[in-house]
């Protein structure tokens, strides 16, 4: 099964992606994660101003069958959420790295981004995950 794994973003072991823009990061769900979840029908977004912690739940994504937490890729504060997802959560399925972004956050410690996986590392990680 081929998954779209793009350049220019970093990936977490929980299958979030984060793209750094200055001291902010745009965060979403990887193509692998949206494929595993199936048709997404509901998104619960955090409030702007919420402080999030790396590896902790920061939003909830629900498909018909499953409830999944979206874990924050780094410590920081939510600065913007993609409210279009409230009415059209399925955009995460069709365009996970584009229109399907979930929130933007201000990074507390930019160096945390270095700990995330780049494209080649994530490609390898996904293959291992599928073999489990």
């Amino acid at each position, binding site marked *: *099964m081929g998954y779209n794994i793009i350049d220019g973003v970093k990936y977490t072991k929980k299958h979030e992606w984060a793209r750094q823009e200055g001291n902010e990061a745009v965060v979403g769900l990887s193509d692998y994660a949206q494929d595993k979840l199936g048709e997404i029908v*509901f998104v619960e977004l955090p409030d702007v101003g919420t402080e999030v912690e790396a590896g902790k739940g920061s939003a909830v994504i629900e498909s*018909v069958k499953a409830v999944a937490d979206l874990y924050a890729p780094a410590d920081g504060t939510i600065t913007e959420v993609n409210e279009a997802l409230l009415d059209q959560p399925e955009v995460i399925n069709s365009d996970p790295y584009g229109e399907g972004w979930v929130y933007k956050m201000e990074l507390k410690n930019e160096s945390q981004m270095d700990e995330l996986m780049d494209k080649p590392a994530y490609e390898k990680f996904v293959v291992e995950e599928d073999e489990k």
Partner: protein
Amino acid sequence: MSEAKKTPFYEKHVALEGKIVDYSGWFLPVQYSRGLVEEVHDTRKRATIFDVSHMGEVSVEGKDAETFLQKILVNDISRLKDNAIMYSPVCYPDGGVVDDILIYRISGDNFFLVVNAANTDKDYAWFQENVFGDVKLQNLSPEYAQVALQGPNSEAILQQLTDTPLGEMKNYHFLPSVNVAGVDCIVSRTGYTGEDGFEVYCKNDGASKLWDAVWEAGQKYELNPAGLGSRDVLRLEASMPLYGHELSKELTPLQARLDRFVALDKEVEFNGQAALKKQKADGMDRMLYGLEMLERGVPREGYPVKSGGQEIGWVSSGSFSPTLDKFIAMAFLDPEFADQAEEVELMIRTRSYRAKITKLPFYRRKK
């Protein structure tokens, strides 16, 4: 728990890129590449094929077979004709449910029961515990494969594979020996989706041939495979109970509003009769209701339901409904509140969401 078992169709699911999961001890596809939502539409508009080989089959034969079944079933099979099928819960003496099953009367004192996969061993033990007289019980589950062909195109597909005129087979009827593409099958007009369709049983050695024949015959009728995920959503839309959700050891058929399958005044005394009669007379503190979300949110099993801040029950099954494009749930609620209320609050994680009480079933096919 021991390693999950493969059905005779396992290789077909892998070839069709089914996402395989372990479902009560069986490796089965939860969905295929088209996805759960499309599989629901495929079933309602065209036709789908499901592997339901995990279901259990038990044969009951002998002079006392009918009396034995009358004692363990809450429905009344005395009026069940040959080649006809009846649905019935099986109850414990306290009215709690052992399982809900289908009874096929092959002829006279020869019956074929279809039971839930996860309950097969428990049911068989229960039957053995209650059996008496001239009754021969056999657990045929390991020998049988089963496919469900569901949706409006089902008859046209299956008819290509047999000379038996399927148009003459009524809903909840069957034939015990039908030649389908050279395989000897039990063919019944039944299903768990709310659509027209057939369930076809054969011995394991004919299974692969049967699947391939149905698959090929289905190509010009846009047949697609469908998995457990869409099966669960389809049955919820049609408001059919699922054991472990709407029925259990702690929930009676009356609470699940299955009154028309409970022959309280049956002549043969049956397991649960006294308890169910008492419950009917006394009333119930939890009964099944339909809920439709008024705010976007996915109702799921176990979520609490409140009215005016007070907890009045729980969700037993819930999902997004692709057919209705709504979020729906079945819930056990306190009738004292639910019969007054038009709206209730459904708790999802930390927030409450508005839902309205609706009639069941959510979906009924146009005939």
